[in-house]
């Protein structure tokens, strides 16, 4: 019989092996899935994982998708370390995109180096505002942050839809629900000429490094860690739970807001309803897969960015539904959590305990 037994000490090997194991299991499942659908699995997996990043343009596209994921994930890491279950990165992101766009459409004809920073700051502030609502509801009215942030995501989406159908709609846009194209000086500069890769990736990497500094070198990072691991211990030490909650949420809102602002001022150049293919939700997977560590989330954001372009590639090359991206992400997260159980537990083989017969030695009755 297989028994699940608590390890005396958590396995630090499993902590880092688990994401790799989860990826392997996901790839195996993908292999089986391609077979079941009557497609060539090797070809399919190649199109998903390798073809998209086999040239410079592809790598640039990877970086393009990494930027918002990494920014959102960096903010969420700060929240999750303190066990604040902020699911609202999607809403912060959308508000960031909306806030930046609202300013950018006023500055279409403006020129000067000040335009872009103003637009980005507007996005950051909008994201922080959205996070502040959830923080206030948590610290002052004791509302569960999971439910409030989810609801705020839906509200943000409807606000954005309202804006592109109403006040921010391009009057000469042939009725399409989208804003005017932003002015040249409100657009993020490209990192690599000839590709779409823009400064957003640098923001993302900077955010990841800041997270590392925060938790490795600062007192507030230490306090966040303590409050996440033992709420009572943090209270005894006199760490202000309210202050830390506000800090974590505002950081989460700022980074996701910047991500949203970078998306509209980067590859899109205007506000459109489909500004996010779910970056804020995927960022949750990035944080768990990256073990809430700066280097981990950089690697995980690259992998999950690949699932977005891999899905598009499969759609073009093999006529598969684009939803394969979401399926892959879901499978990965499912396997990750399952493998994570073995950080705390191990499997023991034990023969089922039989009733001792009169002749048998009573040793078999010994309980583990």
């Amino acid at each position, binding site marked *: 019989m297989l028994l*699940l037994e*608590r390890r005396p000490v958590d396995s630090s090997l499993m902590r880092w092996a688990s994401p790799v194991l989860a990826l392997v299991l996901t790839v195996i499942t993908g292999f089986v899935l391609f077979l079941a659908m009557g497609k060539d699995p090797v070809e399919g997996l190649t199109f998903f994982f390798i073809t998209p990043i086999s040239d410079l343009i592809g790598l640039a596209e990877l970086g393009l998708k990494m930027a918002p994921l990494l920014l959102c994930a960096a903010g969420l890491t700060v929240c999750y370390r303190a066990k604040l*279950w902020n*699911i609202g990165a999607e809403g912060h992101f959308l508000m960031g995109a909306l806030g930046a766009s609202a300013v950018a459409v006023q500055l279409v004809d403006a020129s000067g180096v000040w335009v872009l920073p103003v637009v980005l700051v507007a996005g950051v502030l909008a994201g922080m505002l959205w996070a502040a609502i959830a923080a206030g*509801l948590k610290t002052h*009215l*004791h*509302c*569960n942050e*999971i*439910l*409030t942030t*989810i*609801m*705020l995501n*839906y*509200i943000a989406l*409807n*606000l954005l*839809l*309202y804006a592109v*159908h*109403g006040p921010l709609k391009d009057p000469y846009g042939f009725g399409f629900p989208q804003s005017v194209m932003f002015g040249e000086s409100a657009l993020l500069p490209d990192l690599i000429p000839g590709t779409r890769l823009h400064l957003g990736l640098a923001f993302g990497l900077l955010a990841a490094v800041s997270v590392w500094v925060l938790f490795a070198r600062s007192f507030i990072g230490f306090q966040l860690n303590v409050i996440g691991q033992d709420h009572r211990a943090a209270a005894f030490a006199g760490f202000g739970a309210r202050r830390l909650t506000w800090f974590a949420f505002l950081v989460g809102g700022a980074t996701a807001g910047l991500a949203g602002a970078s998306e509209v001022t980067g590859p899109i150049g205007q506000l459109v309803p489909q500004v996010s293919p779910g970056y804020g*939700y995927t960022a*949750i*997977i990035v944080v*768990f897969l990256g073990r809430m560590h700066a280097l981990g989330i950089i690697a995980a954001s690259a992998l999950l960015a690949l699932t977005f372009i891999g899905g598009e590639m499969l759609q073009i090359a093999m006529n598969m*539904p*684009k*939803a*394969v*991206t*979401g*399926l*892959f*992400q*879901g*499978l990965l*997260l*499912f396997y*990750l*959590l*399952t493998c*994570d*159980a073995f950080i*705390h*537990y191990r499997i023991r083989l034990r023969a089922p305990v039989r009733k001792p017969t009169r002749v048998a030695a009573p040793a078999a009755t010994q309980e583990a």
Partner: protein
Amino acid sequence: MELLTNILAAMVVAGTPLLLVALGELICERSGVLNLGQEGMMLMGAVAGFVVALTTGSLAVAVFAAVFAGIGMALLFAFMAVTLAANQYAAGLVLTIFGTGLSAFVGAGFVGESINGFERVAIPLLSDIPVIGRVLFHQDPLVYFSLVAFVGIWLFLHHSRGGLLLRAVGEDPEAANANGLKVLVVRYLAVAFGGGMAGLAGAYLSLAYTPMWTENMTAGRGWIALALVVFATWRPERVLIGAWLFGAASILHLVLQGLGWRASTELLAMLPYVVTILMLVLLSWNPARTRLNTPLSLGQPYRPGR
């Protein structure tokens, strides 16, 4: 009067998916397990129901398929959260993200197809009662099922031995175990029941409410249902009232437009989510009150034999 009756009838219809999923989650939470994966289970129920209805042409078979899809998802959750004792928050989120992805993948080829959904069936005599007859007894079969399920669950929880055992497990699994109850089995059954109800709620959306399939068609109803269970302080009769009130909030934009109000559809579509937050505020400002009603072991994994 005519208008009011129509509004009330539409409110019951809009509240039915919430009622179904919230009743399932209520049973699940009463056993001490918090399953945040309602949205994922509902989506799988919705897609399974729609695909089966389209391919077999039978709504009854479709409903069964949806229920089994919900149960299947719930068992995945139970494996993570009950057997492997994983964090229930994380496992529930996994279920929602996984269900969203899987349902979109399964349903990708069926977007834009349409079926003939459930028709209204008037119950003889009862449907002749003024107002109430039209509101409650001139509806589709799944609405009737939701009413029967409500009565059944109310009786089960408060007037049966099984309900007592379920509550015992949710309040104090150690004590229940000491009394010879199989805590993990009870929790598995409760989670599976919740999954079946969530699958049915999803099927209501894709077979009756709007007979079609679109990605993410549940639009947060699974999450609203979670708030609803807290709002109802884990009591079925309050779940019923809450679900219908939410139904009213979600059709308000139709009512206002019917009355000739000029307001943005997008802004009015926010209303159910805003109401949910306001409701959470009303409930949560006094944490002692919530704590008083919460099943004591809610959210805590149970490992036997420690």
